[in-house]
């Protein structure tokens, strides 16, 4: 087999299977790190607390909803990667 064949037909398919969990946790970390943008006046999920508290909403409840939003995002990613792991992951 040529380099391309051994890479494409043998190595990468196996690597893909064992790489699912670490990629999943990296993506979850990436989603969580996007919160840092909120502190630099980018209006993302965390950043909305400023607007909402200026509008007079209760600050604690604002954070409860923000937390719920992040939970949905991270749990969705982790569910997706768990499904992929079950389908293609290396059986241990």
């Amino acid at each position, binding site marked *: 087999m040529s*380099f391309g064949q*051994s890479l494409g037909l*043998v*190595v990468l398919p196996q690597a893909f299977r064992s790489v699912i969990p670490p990629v999943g946790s990296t993506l*979850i*970390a990436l989603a*969580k*790190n*996007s*919160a*840092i943008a*909120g*502190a630099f006046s980018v209006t993302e999920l*965390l950043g909305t*607390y400023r607007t909402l*508290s200026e509008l007079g909403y209760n*600050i*604690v409840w*604002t*954070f409860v909803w*923000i*937390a719920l939003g*992040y*939970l949905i995002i*991270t*749990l969705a990613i*982790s569910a997706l990667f768990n499904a992929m792991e079950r389908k293609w992951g290396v059986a241990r």
Partner: protein
Amino acid sequence: MTTANALYDVPGPKTRKRHRLYGIASTVVILGLLAWILYLLFDTDQFTYTKWMPFEYKGIQELLLRGLGNTLKAFGLAAVLSLALGTLLAVGRLSDHRPVRWLSTLVVEFFRAMPVLVMIFFIFVALKVQPLPALVAGLTLYNGSVLAEVFRSGVNSVERGQREAAFALGMRKTQVMSYVLVPQAVRAMLPAIISQLVVALKDTSLGYLITYEEFLHAGKLIASNLDYDLPFIPVVMVISPIYIGMCMLLSWFAGWVSRREQRSPKTEAVDVAPAEPGTLLPRVQ
């Protein structure tokens, strides 16, 4: 045939020549990039005396040192407290009592799924806590939950026979845990624990966002000073090696501990994983 060369043929003379060519070409490209960056730095006058002058002043050196001290204070508190919280939550997750197990699972999963900054902001803004306790509490909740998972998987990764043998000897569950499983688990998990502590150390820089006067905050104060012609890049050049150095020191410490453990006759039977240096890039998890 070993696994290393099972997939590829051993390179012949032609391939070796080609590889050498690739090597030279990429070295040239990398050197070119470095030269370009250096040119940009000089071109934008980053090495002028005005921009580096602040580091000569005693007041500014003290400001930086105070910031460094505050960073280390927050890190020390967060490290100790998160190790304690991690132990507590891991014990809860390994408990035989179902409600305790569920509660600790809920806590661990919740705080692991939450960005650490959301917790810090919640404690700082909504609960109106001082910056240092807010930072330490946020870091503790997050890193404690991650460490709980590390401890739990460590205990579970100890060979099943060890637990069974200990129970067969008539030990109670607490004895099995404290004499047999935990000592082995901690040795196996040391690299993971240390890299989590490296994460905690780097995350103390988030304290800057809630006006905690730590190292990055001191750097920002100097960098935004018009008298020194806004020395942002010099400040980065001074501050980042110190952060990297602290992380490397921590990884080196982990390596030292694991080497010492390997030499210890008490643990001869246990396979001690070599400590890996935690990633040195700013990674906030």
